[in-house]
């Protein structure tokens, strides 16, 4: 057992930690931007709106994140029209493909969380809003969203943790994230135990930081313990 190699190669791990952090953070933010409208419109009365959102959520929740990343990274390169368009400028970058896959994936999962908490809104509050003469939009903005997003926090914190862990597959498409760094170090020194243990410690730091932040948030909103 020789942990001096981890200390010698610490800059790989720092680079990996930074990559994992911004990749996951950005996917979560963009994913949330998809999830909230999708979660609301999922229960729309219009079939033309409801069906595409259902299909999106069904696909991204129904298949593994790894497969989705492969489809976007290797699959996209197969189409000449895509490679000749301006979009290839982005699709040729591994980070963009990973960001896209992660965003759509977490977007679909979070949309399901949002749909769930909206459908379990206390009927009394909605009736009270109606009695006050609030329009549909006002009810959504003033009553439904604040109440349900607060209740969504515990479930969403789980999704964040899953995303941090799921991001480990980014290394497969040449990105040097935490796992990617561990692979480079393992490849050089053939020391899998030390290399991956260091990666596990970094993931634990990230995960526990996320859990801590969510705990503070939940306390702030006094969510049912």
């Amino acid at each position, binding site marked *: 057992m020789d942990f001096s190699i981890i200390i010698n190669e610490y800059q790989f791990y720092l680079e990996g930690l930074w990559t994992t952090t911004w990749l996951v953070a950005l996917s979560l933010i963009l994913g949330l931007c998809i999830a909230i409208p999708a979660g609301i419109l999922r229960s729309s009365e219009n079939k033309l709106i409801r069906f595409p959102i259902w299909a999106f959520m069904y696909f991204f929740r129904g298949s593994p994140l790894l497969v989705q990343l492969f489809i976007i990274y*290797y699959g996209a*390169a*197969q189409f000449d029209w895509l*490679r000749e368009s301006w979009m290839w400028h982005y699709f*040729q970058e*591994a980070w963009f493909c990973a960001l896209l896959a992660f965003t759509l994936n977490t977007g679909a999962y979070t949309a399901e969380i949002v749909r769930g908490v909206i459908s379990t809104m206390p009927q009394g509050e909605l009736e009270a809003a109606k009695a006050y003469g609030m329009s549909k939009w006002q009810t959504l903005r003033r009553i439904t969203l604040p109440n349900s997003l607060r209740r969504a926090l515990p479930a969403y914190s789980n999704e964040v943790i899953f995303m941090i862990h799921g991001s480990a597959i980014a290394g*497969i498409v*040449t990105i040097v994230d935490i796992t*990617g760094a561990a*692979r*480079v170090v*393992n*490849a*050089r020194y*053939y020391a*899998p135990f030390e290399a991956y243990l260091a990666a596990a410690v970094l993931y634990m730091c990230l995960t526990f930081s996320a859990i801590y932040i969510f705990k503070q948030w939940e306390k702030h909103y006094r969510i049912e313990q």
Partner: protein
Amino acid sequence: MKKISLLIAAVILSSNVVAKEWKSIRIGVEGAYPPFSQTEADGSITGFDIDIANALCAEMKAKCTLVKQDWDGIIPALMARKFDAIIATMDITAERQKKVAFTDKYQHIPARFVALKDTGYEATDEFMKGKNIGVQRATSMDLYISDNYPSAKIKRYGSADEAYLDLKASRLDYVMADSAAITGGLLEKEGGDKFEFVGPQLNDPKWFGEGAGIAIRKKDKDLAAQFNAALKEIRANGVYKEIQDKYFSFDVYGG
């Protein structure tokens, strides 16, 4: 009590004194490095390395089991006793010899760059600055590029096949691998006619060693001796040449 300790002593002594003749050997192979080792549609593994492994086992009259293992975990897996030897076009390098022992070489093929036709090439870090170079992770080429072209953007892949895919998708400017692997895995395959070798054949022993050998755990010296004897035999009796001619039109053993 005395009897038992005598028995234990006898067991320990016998296992230490008598060199074990290996009758059953598990061999780690990669299965993603054509034409040395590739996985067929039906799941079976074929290729030069595989034929060599089978020929050596036949020569040693040993029962061999092939175990498929991804490249970047292949040395750790050997040390974790998942198998007893690696036959996977592994260059005998000083770096690897810190962890494992090698038999004599069984082939020696230079490494080369491959790129789209008419891509320029200069062997300087300045020219390679910002260029995307694909290599297979944990190979001699990985180290060679990392050490010689630090300003290039090195992309590391789990297998050479994945690097070829990204070269075809123009995500990479160059790929570096064994020249014979590039010929068999890219140039002779569909769509390969758009690519060509660039630059000279590279075989600096500092990075590429003295050729590819069979890797074994350091303490299994008897197994190394057994492999070396069998290797000499198949070189002498023409079996090696027969296998070589099946895959290559040139001498892969080297001088």
